């Protein structure tokens, strides 16, 4: 599964740590998601979509 979390983060100019703090996870979780090493749960995907103001489909794709 691919994602464009890194791109969305760059648009908002926030670091991995800032995103991690905002959605209540660790920095290594954001790193693992961005590098396709971990697929987040529905709950975490929804939190990210709410944070970026995008739908889950816009953030994640098969």
């Amino acid at each position, binding site marked *: 599964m691919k994602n464009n979390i890194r791109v969305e983060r760059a648009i908002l100019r926030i670091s991995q740590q800032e995103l991690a703090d905002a959605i*209540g*996870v660790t920095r290594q979780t954001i790193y693992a998601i961005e590098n396709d090493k*971990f697929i987040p749960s529905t709950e975490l995907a929804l939190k990210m979509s709410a944070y970026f103001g995008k739908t889950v489909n816009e953030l994640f794709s098969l």
Partner: protein
Amino acid sequence: MNHNRYLLPHSFQRIGWALLIACPILLGIFLWIFNGAELIPQKYSRFGTLIIYLVAAFSALFVGLSEEKQEDEFIHSLRLRSVALTAFVCFVLMILSAVIVDTLVAFRVQNMGVFFSFYQLFNSIIFAFFVYIVIFRYRLYKYRKEASHEE
């Protein structure tokens, strides 16, 4: 999402590490008491062994099954993957040690004590706990290091 249903609070991890450090120190003290200085008769040495066993068991339990400062779903998935790898590693070691011990018994090799010790060690749940701790801690360290290089 609550991932820590079966985990002890983070404070137990510190206790676990302290007990783990205490293990070799206790071993040294008991070896000195029972063998070196012979302060206590040798026949009571089994109590020393029992104490070290209990300290090792509780340290493994506290370090292995206590939550991280910030326990999230990624760490939870790391735990699950580490448990799976631990099962494979322990299974291979258990089978290998069983085959080696049986082969040596068949060939009537002398001084098998050390091989039986390994056989017992690889069949022990505490050993599996320590293998799990090494695998999980290494993976967590690796991800933390990699993540620290990213912006």
